[in-house]
């Protein structure tokens, strides 16, 4: 009896939701957030697939969303003074990018492009703000994580050569 109840309860669980929550939990930007809040965030994610070479966003575009890499690899590049491109970061699974869109409405500082076929989750800024309004703990946890990232970048910025981050929450690769 109890075994069948357990199997019914297990069937009632959404496996896709579980995968999304697991991805969020392993993303450093969302470290310290309660599972219930991650569940709420997971509900608001849009999934989008990109072919290798496709642009996710371009430098100068309005920043309106945060991206999470579920599968594949993304490179972040910036136009150089010589007209060429300078690679700033190469991001793998369980990483977030475009995080400044959660803070301000200024244009993107860099271009993000899929290196391999990738699956990304998109979190729209307003959805995130609604979550923050409902629970200040979200704002606090995210602000702490963003500040930690900013502090690390500021510390490493002047250290030659320019860091190429793997963005896994650990120190940038040089």
């Amino acid at each position, binding site marked *: 009896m109890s075994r069948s109840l357990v199997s019914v309860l297990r069937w009632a669980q959404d496996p896709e939701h579980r995968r999304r929550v697991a991805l969020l939990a392993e993303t450093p930007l969302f470290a310290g957030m309660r599972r219930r809040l991650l569940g709420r965030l997971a509900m608001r994610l849009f999934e989008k697939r990109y072919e290798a070479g*496709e642009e996710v966003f371009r430098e100068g575009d*309005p920043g309106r969303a945060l991206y999470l890499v579920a599968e594949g690899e993304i490179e972040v590049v910036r136009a150089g003074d010589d007209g060429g491109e300078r690679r700033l970061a190469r991001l793998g699974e369980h990483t977030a990018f475009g995080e400044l869109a959660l803070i301000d409405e200024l244009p993107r500082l860099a271009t993000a492009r899929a290196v391999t076929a990738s699956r990304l989750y998109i979190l729209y800024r307003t959805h995130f703000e609604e979550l923050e309004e409902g629970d200040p703990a979200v704002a606090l946890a995210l602000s702490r994580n963003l500040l930690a990232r900013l502090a690390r970048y500021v510390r490493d910025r002047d250290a030659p050569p320019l860091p190429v981050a793997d963005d896994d929450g650990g120190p940038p690769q040089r």
Partner: protein
Amino acid sequence: MSAPPAAGARPPTSAAALGLVVLLALVGVGWLFRGLFLPLLAAALGAYFAHPIVARAQERGIRRSVAVAALFVVATAALVVTVIVVAPAVERQARELVREAPAFGERLETLAAAARRSLVARLPWLAHQLPELAPGWPERLLADQQRHAATVASGAGTVLFVLLLAPIFGFFLLRDGGRLLDGMVRLVPPRHIETSVAIWCEIDRIIGRYLRGLVIESLGVAVLAAAGLWALGVPAPMLLGAFAGMVNPLPYVGVLLSLAVALATALGAGMGPDVLLAVVGLFVVIRLVDDFVLIPLALGGSVHLHPALVIAAILAGEQTLGVLGMVLAVPLVTVVKEVVRLLLESAAARRGRPRAARATTAVAPYLC
């Protein structure tokens, strides 16, 4: 210098042509199935109201289909209980009102004639402006309304059609809405995904908040009006409260309509000027509670429009879709305003205008 188009990207002209073809196809399909517009609209509204409950269950990891099925079971049970508990009281009040209607009419006729005589005695020039009402006008007015009611009843088939189909459509919209959206997100070219997601989220946020807020606000107004009228001893308070709640979504007009009907009922019941004044006072208090408590709580900042634009939108809505248009006008204009803002922002970014702002932003190089 603009970047070369991504691999596989269509040139802008062919993309625009494809968009136009898709739009025309959608309009054509919409025209073919126009008979389903009302049940689909009712289903969409129902889905909007129910979505937050389903979302709560999903946040806890429950499958959407399970949450939707459970919600429908609970909603059906709640509807049955409400009908069993509330319907007899409403029916009793309606019967009383119908039984008392002739007496109400006589009193209203006497009161109107007395008011006219008094006014003309004081201001004789009004005699031509205020024609004497023919005897028995309240009965004729009521008969007109009954004829109108008969017309409405003749459309009962349509109402039944909507009532039967709307829950079915609502169930599938609620269950599969997310999948439909995922399908659309897959179809949008990567270059436009962020703007498309932003547009969708803003439409969803504005309409969802507005409609849910409107229902909560109307329920609040209905309860306050029913309780207040009951306390004042006005007949059929539940019916009058329900009417106040139903017409409440009509901006500016709703409160005047419900006040007029409540005053006419009190007058017809032979209540004195003290009660009539109290009824006016009650609706003023309800209006204030609505403006300062219910609307901020229920609707929040979902709609930011200039009052002149609100009035223009309501008038245009009334011209095109009648009462439904009046209710939908404000959120629709807000949606259009927001969509235009997002599209202009994207267009400006493509033209490279905001680059000056970027150049002055002192942020570490690989944050984006």
